[in-house]
């Protein structure tokens, strides 16, 4: 088994899980789905630079094999942005729940009267 | 010299990894939560400690770099690991006390009550003016 296959299949599993959860009906699941999706995307972006083992992009004279630094920088930016978005989404969905009494993503804002089985 | 160093390093590596593995094995095979809690402490202390020593020695002998900062990892772990264990134990005590379904007692049975008045802090908030409550000051 190659490392590339592992990474690609991991991306596949994460994306599938992410999409499935994002399509669920409650905000928390959707947030989890987005988190999985963002892991997958980060991994994907990272993988775009091809996989290099144990050759970090720290400049030294004469070093020729090293990981592509640019995708790493991009992923870093993406992680930060994703974090901001996730934080906002979590708090927004919480606030929406507090305001409407329902944590479902669908439907209009009318408070839904339902008995929680939990 | 280098052969001896190699042997020492290899031994430390195996020792550390072995303890880490034993710790995790304990986590799997010991009968209940409180017993399992003893497992990770192994990995934390001697297991990781040995590995870190091996790392120090390795970089010293192989690359001629004198690195000691691995010791810092140990320092942090020595500070944090007991706290984690303490909190997990509290979770266990609490869950047992409220009768959570999936929370069997330790094989040591339910904890005895302290001799003085009152109960353990998990079940009764510490009153003011005693050491256990300083946090609230």
């Amino acid at each position, binding site marked *: 088994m190659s490392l590339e296959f592992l990474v690609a299949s991991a991306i596949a599993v994460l994306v599938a899980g992410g999409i499935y959860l994002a399509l669920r009906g409650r905000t928390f699941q959707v947030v989890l789905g987005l988190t999985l999706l963002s892991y997958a995307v980060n991994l994907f972006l990272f993988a775009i630079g091809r996989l290099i083992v144990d050759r970090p992009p720290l400049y030294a004279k004469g070093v020729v094999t090293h990981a592509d630094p640019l995708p790493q920088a991009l992923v870093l930016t993406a992680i930060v942005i994703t974090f901001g978005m996730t934080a906002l989404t979590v708090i927004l969905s919480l606030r929406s729940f507090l305001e409407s009494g329902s944590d479902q993503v669908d439907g209009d804002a009318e408070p839904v009267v339902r008995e929680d089985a939990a | 010299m280098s052969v001896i160093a190699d042997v020492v390093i290899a031994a430390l590596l195996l020792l*550390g990894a072995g303890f*880490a593995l034993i710790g*995790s094995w304990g986590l799997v095979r010991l009968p209940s939560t409180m017993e399992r809690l003893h497992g990770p402490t192994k990995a934390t202390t001697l297991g990781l400690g040995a590995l870190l020593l091996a790392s120090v020695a390795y970089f010293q002998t192989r690359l001629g770099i004198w690195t000691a*900062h691995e010791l810092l990892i140990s320092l942090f772990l020595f500070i944090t690991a007991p706290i*984690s264990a303490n909190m997990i134990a509290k979770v266990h005590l609490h869950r047992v006390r409220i009768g*959570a379904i999936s929370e069997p007692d330790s094989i040591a049975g339910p904890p005895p009550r302290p001799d003085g008045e009152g109960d353990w802090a998990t079940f009764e908030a510490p009153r003011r003016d005693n050491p256990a409550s300083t946090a609230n000051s």
Partner: protein
Amino acid sequence: MIGIALHIAAGCIALALLLNGWRLWRGPALGDRIVALDTMVINAIALIVLIGMIGGNDTYFEAALLLAMVGFVSTIAYCKFILRGDIVE
């Protein structure tokens, strides 16, 4: 020799991670899962140290240090959630 030892050690840690994973998945008590997660973090630190040795550079030290420092924060938070519900009060 060291090379072999390194790989054996890495294998041990990997095995340990698997065992942690099993306990994490299995439970049954919440405490068990948290212990398993905490142990996983410890083993991950060990793995990072080993990776650093295998690769022959110590640039990974910070990651291990950071993990040692903050790994316990999430453990505590998980515990506090069970104990108190609200983790910051």
